[in-house]
């Protein structure tokens, strides 16, 4: 049996999080009540003219720089001509001939942990189309058009066909999402449609360099679906070729329930003619440099710094730096004097799950870094124990009191004073002569039992470390 390998390229649409649409001043909020964000320009009324949004250009440029692509000194819009009710003027404004940026790459690790550089062919800007809703009016099928999304600013990232496996496609998308979130140009959520991925897939006998007819797969709404769809398509095409069938150029839709791809339509390639209205975009080198200074430290560099500066493991550093909000929060905690290890541990195991449980976002949550750091610093100073810290964290979400005040109010302050603990210890030792005897006979388990008894007597507030030392000393001294 012949062994096949896949040749995969991705086309990724990213909806920019600009305040307005790309060519008019309408709000860029596609999810609003239908047809609330429309004007003569995005409905392409007679006499309307497009005006390219500066913010869209800047956010697109930042995205390109963040992916290491080279901004072109000259780019321009073309008209992609086709007729469909979701396209209000018979053509889509897109950069077909002179894209905004070329080149760039994303570094990932493949399944075997080997580094892979996956190249970007180019990145261009384009406008989104309207949304069609198909309904029945009695027995009459009708189509409704919501133009809120028409003219929303998009960039399309077109990769080289460098990918060989579903996993590479998924790793690439995760890294891409992280990098775009870093530069702040988009949330890149496949679930919410702000990142949409089409995969072009062909297969060839392993080891040959041939480029065979590709099939385009659409309609995946998570990164996992992209992996599943690509894997399915590789198997399907390999089986077809094995059976002597010819692969034809067409588009397929991923069906997430049946986990199969289904043929959709022959791929229609409309002509792209230069748009005579939107001016050519000429980027001066100084402008490009100014954009470059607006780039934040990118995730790979930040992860490296987390390792060298804060002593995190590589895996921890990559995890923390993947989300700019998480990474920023982590650094804010450190800035407030929390140790990197405590900050990492408490952020990942306690705060993030707590925020998620409450349906909040880290950035706007009721527990900003200063409050969380105050709590963690009390823990570090042994003023409270871990159990109390978890309790107080829960309270921080519902109260705007300072963590110190909550600790005091709940009486969580840890008892570390030996004199206060002495009395409790003496009482427990007097009540548990059998256990004391066991400890003296060398049974370590019994010491734990005694510690537990004193802790209970303290209402959970005894500092466990101080308690253990005192208790051990007392038991042996009395022998």
């Amino acid at each position, binding site marked *: 049996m012949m062994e096949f390998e896949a040749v995969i390229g991705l086309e990724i649409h990213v909806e920019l999080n600009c305040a307005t649409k790309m060519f008019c001043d309408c709000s860029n909020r596609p999810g609003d009540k239908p047809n609330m964000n429309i004007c003569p320009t995005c409905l392409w*009324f007679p*006499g309307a*003219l497009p005006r390219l949004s500066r913010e869209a250009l800047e956010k697109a440029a930042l995205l390109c720089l963040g992916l290491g692509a080279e901004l072109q000194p000259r780019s321009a819009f073309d*008209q992609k001509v086709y007729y469909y009710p979701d396209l*209000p003027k018979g053509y889509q404004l897109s950069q077909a001939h002179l894209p905004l940026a070329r080149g760039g790459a994303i570094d990932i690790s493949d399944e075997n942990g080997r580094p892979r550089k996956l190249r970007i062919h180019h990145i261009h800007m384009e406008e989104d189309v309207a949304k069609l809703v198909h309904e029945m009016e009695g027995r009459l099928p009708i189509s409704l058009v919501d133009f809120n999304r028409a003219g929303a600013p998009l960039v399309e990232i077109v990769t080289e066909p460098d990918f060989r496996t579903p996993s590479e496609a998924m790793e690439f998308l995760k890294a891409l999402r992280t990098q775009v979130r870093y530069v702040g140009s988009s949330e890149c959520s496949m679930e919410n449609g702000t990142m949409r991925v089409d995969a072009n897939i062909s297969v060839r006998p392993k080891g040959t360099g041939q480029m065979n007819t590709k099939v385009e797969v659409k309609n995946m709404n998570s990164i996992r679906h992209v992996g599943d769809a690509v894997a399915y398509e590789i198997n399907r095409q390999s089986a077809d070729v094995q059976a002597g069938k010819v692969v034809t150029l067409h588009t397929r839709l991923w069906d997430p329930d049946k986990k199969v791809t289904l043929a959709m339509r022959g791929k229609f390639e409309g002509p792209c003619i230069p748009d*005579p209205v*939107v*001016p050519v975009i000429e980027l001066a080198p100084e402008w490009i440099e100014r954009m470059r200074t607006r780039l934040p430290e990118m995730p790979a560099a930040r992860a490296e710094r987390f390792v060298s500066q804060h002593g995190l493991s590589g895996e921890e550093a990559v995890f923390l730096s993947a989300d700019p909000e998480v990474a920023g929060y982590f650094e804010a905690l450190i800035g407030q004097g929390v140790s990197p290890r405590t900050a990492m541990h408490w952020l990942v195991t306690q705060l993030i799950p707590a925020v998620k449980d409450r349906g909040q976002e880290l950035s706007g949550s009721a527990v900003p870094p200063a409050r969380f750091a105050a709590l963690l610093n009390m823990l570090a100073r042994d003023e409270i124990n871990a159990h109390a810290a978890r309790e107080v964290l829960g309270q921080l979400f519902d109260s705007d009191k300072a963590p110190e005040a909550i600790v005091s109010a709940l009486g969580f302050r840890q008892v570390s004073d030996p004199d206060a603990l002495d009395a409790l210890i003496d009482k427990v030792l007097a009540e548990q002569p059998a256990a004391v005897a066991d400890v003296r006979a060398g049974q370590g388990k019994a010491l734990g039992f005694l510690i537990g008894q004193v802790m209970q007597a303290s209402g959970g507030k005894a500092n466990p470390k101080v308690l253990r030392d005192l208790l051990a000393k007392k038991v042996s001294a009395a022998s």
Partner: protein
Amino acid sequence: MDSIFFYRPPEAAVPADGPLKGMNIAIQPNVSAAGWPTDAGSNALARFVALEDATVVERLRQAGASICGSTRMSEFGFGLDGSRAGEAIKRNAAHAELVLDLMGESRLAASAGDVCGFKPSYGLVSRFGLIGLIPSMECYGILSDSLKNIREILKAIAGPDERDFSLPDETTPDFSPQNIDTGKTTVGIIKEAPGSLPARQESLYRAAIETLGDAGLTVKELSLPDFPLFLPVHKIVGAVEASSCTGRYDSVRYGVRVPGAKNWNEMYLSSRGAAFGPLLKSYLFQGTFFQFERYDAYEDACRIRARLVAGMRRLAAQADFWAIPVERGGPDAPASLADTYAQFALTAYANVAGLPALYLPPAQGRPHPGVQLSGPRLSDARLLALGEHLLNARRGGNA
């Protein structure tokens, strides 16, 4: 009068104080004036009412002019079939008219109406609110008996507009009156321009050229062997742009939808089929053909266009202005695309190259058809000054 005007407002707004005070200007129904029917001469926009004012309308009114109505026009301003441009001036119903110039319509209308007609440089006047057809070539032409009116109107409407980003970032010419030093002014005659003019027309053109020499200008022969390519380039590039530009008339959001379609493909076919007249349809078919079937020819045409622009720039180094013949006559209502194009063989150059062009009618009693003068981009003010100089010289009895 009703046969000239497509729409006249029930009562004209009280004009603002300004340099154009007292001037009545007619527009065409492809210029947006809020509340006015603006069908651009097409069924595609039957009963369409403009939502806001075009920049030109706003500026003309601010300068004191009164917009007195819109005149009947050809479909989307392409050619002159059905157009009554120039007649409102003739009948004293307007001091000036704005007429869309896609390939020379305003200049030919001026010639037919025996008035002056001026097409400004491309990019000098905002197209916001213009229901256009060929974005890279179209331009408002201004018709009037008086070049001073034309100059004042252009001064009022020219210049940057934040609603039209396609205007190049450049200095607007100074439209104050200026003198022409005839001894130092050269007018070039492009050898290849008369091309296939019939012998009689060519001799009339020579007669018109003589009037330039009589006015003291230096007349010099120039050569641009590519001149005959202006029209074919216009045919391809213009038609492709027009085909895209009219894509928005799909009956989805506005315009007239023909009922009864079973699906939206049928809806497109029936509604767009009913939207456009036969001449425009052939024009749009031509554009669609080049878009979908002969994109290579379209690319060639774009390259040749750049060469033609460069060629005209080279001529500008050899002469201050140039004179181009005007042909009078031709079929009144051209039935075919070919007949329509034939009318514009000597005017399309200015639209392809974005140049200003001025039509001057002949002095009374002269048999020649007048003359078309053109110059480098943004030489509009000087070109108008040259025109005013020539008309003054006539009054002095020279021409």
